[in-house]
Every structure is written in structure tokens, then in C-alpha cells.
């Protein structure tokens, strides 16, 4: 079992006509993702993949479980609302620079439909050996029992290389998004891993800005469970400079590096000081947990 995505998940692709969407759709299918349709407002046909003019039309024909959108920032709000209304449970939006109010509206549409918005500004979801949606290259990740949740996309890549290099595989990897706001919190994903019998250890890849990590720490403290290993980036640099991620801005004195590390340690989370310590720490933590055998 994985969370959110496996080889049976029926995936609909929005924004598949652009260069990036086309490239990623080909890659997803080659990896094993069950792509059941694509949305093309112009009616352009997509070869072996059925093409539909609207999400509603697609849903009536293919009954997708998950929609991944490669469309630009201006389309995310409407696309997510349409998808949730059509009964799709999970929407993954990769676009950057989505307006705050559009994210709130999309997140609320998901909640009303008991669905989940992953992102925006995410590189997607990867269940190694099963399926991937978003921007993951097939070279990243290997099957195993570590769940990974991250605000940063490229930090995921670095972490997967570090883990896989020493034979530590992953159950599911979820990028929740590095922007000002996101549809799904790190705590929500941690709770999913907590209920997932294929996950033994959770890795949190966080960064300065927002209270995402502090919220997760509070959840872990209130409901202890599987061990959590955390890396918080942003120890170096000015708190006034987001350095690439709009969500990494320390605003109004909240979301600073020390606050996050303190809250996580207080909750019993194993906080490492740099990426090079990740693999060994996961190994050590897993070994300490009785009955846990990390692949």
C-alpha cells in the first residue's frame, strides 16, 4: 500500500498540450502511471490517450481518481474547482505563482467535496515502482518503507538520491508545495503515512517561513507514532529574503529556523543539521524502532 497514488490510480492530465505537459505525460506513462485521459480545450487528440474538451466530459467517460495539472497559474483555481465538482478526489497542481485567493478557493472546493489539493508549486507525487505524477524524473526514488513529505521539490530529489544511494527506499513521496500557501499541510500527509502500513519512518523536508513545521510538530506531540526525521533548510541567509521560494519568507517574526527546530525537537522529531546526515539518521532511527526493517 502507498498513499495517494499507486499503479491502479486513474490519472487525468490537464495542460498536456504544452511542451512540458506533453513531455511529462510521456514520462509518466513510461514509468507506469495509469493515465486514462487528457484535457484539450481545442479538441486536439493525444495519440493513445483519450482526449476530452472538459474535465466533466472526461470524468463521465473515464472516472479518474486524480487530476494532475500542468497548466499555468491562472488556470489552477478553476481547474481544481471543476475537478472536485466532477468527483475527482485528488488534484495535483504544479504551477508556481498562483494567487493566494485562488489557492484558498481551490482548497475549500476540495474540502467541500472531501477531496485534496496537492500544491500548487509542487513537483507532485511519487510512489516508487508504482506511479508518478508531476515533475519527478524516473531516475529518482526506489521502492521501500520511508514516507517523504516536502515543501521543496528539488530538495526531494536531493533527499531521494541520498536515501536510495544506501538502499533506503520510499513508500510515497509527496511535494506539498513551496509557495505562500498550499492546499494540503505536511501534518495531513504525516497523518496519512501514520495510517499507511507500508510506511515505517517519515521524513520531513522543511524550510524557513510559514508555520508548517511547527504545526506538524504539534500534531506529532499530540499523537505520537512512527518516527519522524526532519531537515529544515534556511539556516543560512537573511530571514528577509525568501531565496527562490515565496513561502520561505520569515514574516512578522514567525517561521524562523530556530523556532522550527525547537518545536520539532520538543515533539521528539529527529532533526538533522544537513542533508548529508539524512540516510544514516533514517537508518539509525529505524533500527531503534522495534520491528522496523527499512529496505
Amino acid at each position, binding site marked *: 500500500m502507498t498513499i495517494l497514488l499507486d499503479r491502479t490510480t486513474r490519472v487525468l492530465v490537464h495542460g498536456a498540450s504544452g511542451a512540458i505537459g506533453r513531455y511529462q505525460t510521456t514520462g509518466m506513462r513510461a514509468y507506469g502511471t495509469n493515465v486514462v485521459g487528457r484535457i484539450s480545450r481545442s479538441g486536439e487528440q493525444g495519440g493513445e490517450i483519450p482526449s476530452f474538451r472538459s474535465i466533466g466530459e472526461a470524468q463521465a467517460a473515464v472516472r479518474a481518481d486524480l487530476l494532475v495539472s500542468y497548466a499555468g497559474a491562472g488556470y489552477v483555481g478553476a481547474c481544481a474547482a471543476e475537478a472536485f465538482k466532477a468527483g475527482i478526489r485528488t488534484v495535483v497542481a504544479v504551477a508556481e505563482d*498562483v494567487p*493566494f485567493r485562488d489557492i484558498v478557493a481551490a482548497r475549500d472546493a476540495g474540502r467541500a467535496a472531501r477531496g485534496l489539493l496537492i500544491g500548487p508549486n509542487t513537483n507532485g507525487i511519487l510512489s516508487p515502482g508504482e506511479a508518478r505524477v508531476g515533475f519527478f524524473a524516473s531516475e529518482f526514488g526506489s521502492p521501500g518503507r520511508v514516507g517523504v513529505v*516536502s515543501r521543496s521539490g528539488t530538495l526531494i*530529489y*536531493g533527499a531521494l538520491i541520498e536515501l536510495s544511494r544506501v538502499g533506503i527506499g520510499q513508500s510515497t513521496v509527496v511535494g506539498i508545495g513551496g509557495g505562500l500557501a498550499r492546499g494540503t499541510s505536511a501534518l495531513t500527509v504525516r497523518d496519512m503515512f501514520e495510517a499507511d502500513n507500508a510506511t515505517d519512518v517519515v521524513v520531513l523536508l522543511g524550510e524557513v517561513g*510559514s508555520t508548517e513545521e511547527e504545526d506538524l510538530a504539534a500534531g506529532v506531540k499530540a499523537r505520537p507514532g512512527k518516527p519522524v526525521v526532519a531537515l529544515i533548510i534556511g539556516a*543560512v541567509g537573511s530571514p528577509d529574503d525568501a*531565496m527562490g*521560494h515565496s513561502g520561505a519568507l520569515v514574516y512578522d517574526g514567525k517561521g524562523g529556523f530556530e523556532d522550527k527546530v525547537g518545536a520539532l525537537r520538543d515533539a521528539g522529531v529527529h532533526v538533522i543539521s*544537513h542533508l548529508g546526515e539524512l540516510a544514516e539518521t533514517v537508518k539509525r532511527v529505524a533500527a531503534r524502532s522495534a520491528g522496523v526493517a527499512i529496505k
Partner: protein
Amino acid sequence: VRLLEDQLKPLLAARGISVPAGAKVVDRHELKRFMGSRHRIVLKALVAANDRAAAGQVVVVTRNRAFAELDRLLAAGDGVWAEEYVEYARECFVGLVWPGIDDAPTLLTSDKGGTGVSHGRPVHRHVYRAGESLTGPLASLPGMASVIRAVGDLFEELAAIALEINPLVVTPDGRLLALDAKAYLDPYGRRSPLGLESAVQSTNPLLEFARLDGQVGVLSIGAGLTRAVIDWLTVIGPGAACFSDLIPAVLADMTQLLAGEAGTESIRASAWLCDDLAARGRRSLLINLVSATPIDSLSKSVLAGLRKANWQGRVAVHLGGNRSAEAADFWRSEGIQPAPDLAAAIAAA
């Protein structure tokens, strides 16, 4: 994106909130024209600081001191806001903030100015838009509902995350007057027809970049991994000389990169970084190319950039992701052996 006083006050006035007569001035000639027959005025440096009064950037001046103070304040910021001097009987505060995605917008009020907010509560949009159901210390002030309504309208129109009037003052004849105000806007919010696009700070279109104090230049893809490498370098010793993320250039070059070609903007960004490092006396460069973007074509771009800048320093390379095996072959063919992992690359750099 923060709006400064000269941008915000006309917007408040247009929505019926009284503001003192004022104007942005950038030289003595403009100040003289604004002063006219006024004997006493207020001068404020247009800077994004939180307590300008404490920093001496807000001053009440008479005519004979005005030019000297203007010269001093012009050195501090991007122009000066000149304003009529207003006597008032009482200071208040009113603001709307959206603390986070899981919170509702919150209306903050106080019967004091400054930073002492004494009453805050989440409010539904219809509340602040209608200016109804006002509670707290300012509920009994005549005209306050109109102010709240106007602030709410502007909050929505600007796609603001925070908007505050501080202080909002009550004049001796009972009028409400916004003496100062600031707003933080969603940088990705839709632009309203207010001509505020110029408020968005420009960034280097080719490279997300910041100079740091360490020794090793870091050329990487993606903010998160770049920052992780910077932290790692700092923990083990030499520190990073810069934060430099190729993502803007990669996005601009995507068609070329997907076609297996070197990208024009990626070449330019790489060369620009090498020039900056060399000019600052740094002699070591860590190239960390880990991405779902084809790494082989990106490697061609980066190496072309190094050559364009005639980079003479040390180079350590780490590769991962899409077509990274082909990229490793490319670097080896150019006489550079990629490191087997990131730790080895950092050690080599």
C-alpha cells in the same frame, strides 16, 4: 509586495477615507510648491520600515527647517512624503490581515495607535465589506463602519494579505483621518486596474541570486536543494559565496533543453555567476545539477557559460535525475570527472 504611503493614501482617499493633504516630493522645488503658505508640515521618508518615527524618518518641521530635513530624508529612501500637519485628539488603529490559508481574514482594531492591538477577531468577508457588526473598542466611533467597509473593499481589490491604517486619528471636530497606512499584497494576486504593477520588485530574470559571505560558489537548480547545499557547506566549514538557482533560466530555455540543446539563458546565467565570483575573489565552484529537466543539455549550457566567462577556478560537479548518465559522459569527455555523490562534490569544492 509592500505598498508605501504615497501609493496607498490616494487609494484610501478614492474610497472615501479622509487623509491629510500630501504629495510625494523628490527635490526642494517640489517641496516649496507643496508648502505654499503652510507654516508647519510633516515629512516622511518613503522607506519600507516599521517604525519610521523612532528611526527619525518622520519629522514635524517648520518652514525654516524643511529643506535641511528634506535633504536628510531623501538620502534614506525613494523620495519623501510631505503632508499637512494635523492636530488630533485621539489615535486608533484598524487593520485587516489574512494570517494564513487556514485562517479567515482577521479584523484588528485598537483604541491606541502604534503597535498595541487590543482587539482582533476573524471575520467573514461580508462583515468587513459591509462594515457591519463592528465590536471592540472602536465600535461607538461615528464613521468607523464606513472606514472598515472601505478598508475591506481595498483589501479585496488589491489582493492584499494585510492592510492597516495606523494611526487612524480623530480630529478635534470629530473627523476620522488616516495619518499613515501600509499594505502587503499577494505578489501573485491579479493586478487590479490601479497601476500598481510598478510596486512589484524586479528580480534578475536569469538567476535567482543572493550574495553570501562564504567561499564556494554554488550553481544549482531549485531553491530548496540550493539552500540545502548552502547549509551543508556552512555546517562543514567554508560556507557558500552565493545563492544561485538556475530555475528562471531553465524555464526560459525549456524548449531548447528538451530538444537536447544548450540553453541561451542558462549559458548567460552561468557566465554571469562566474564573473561575479571571480570579481569577488572566489576560486571554487560547486555545480549541482539534479533535476527532472534533461541534465545533459543543461550541462552543455553550464560548461559553455564557464568558458564564456573564462572561469579559471576549481570546479566540482554532482549530477542526478533525467539523463544524468549521459551528462556524466559529457563532463568526462570535457575532462571533468563528476563526483559520485553530493558529499564528495562538496568535499571537492
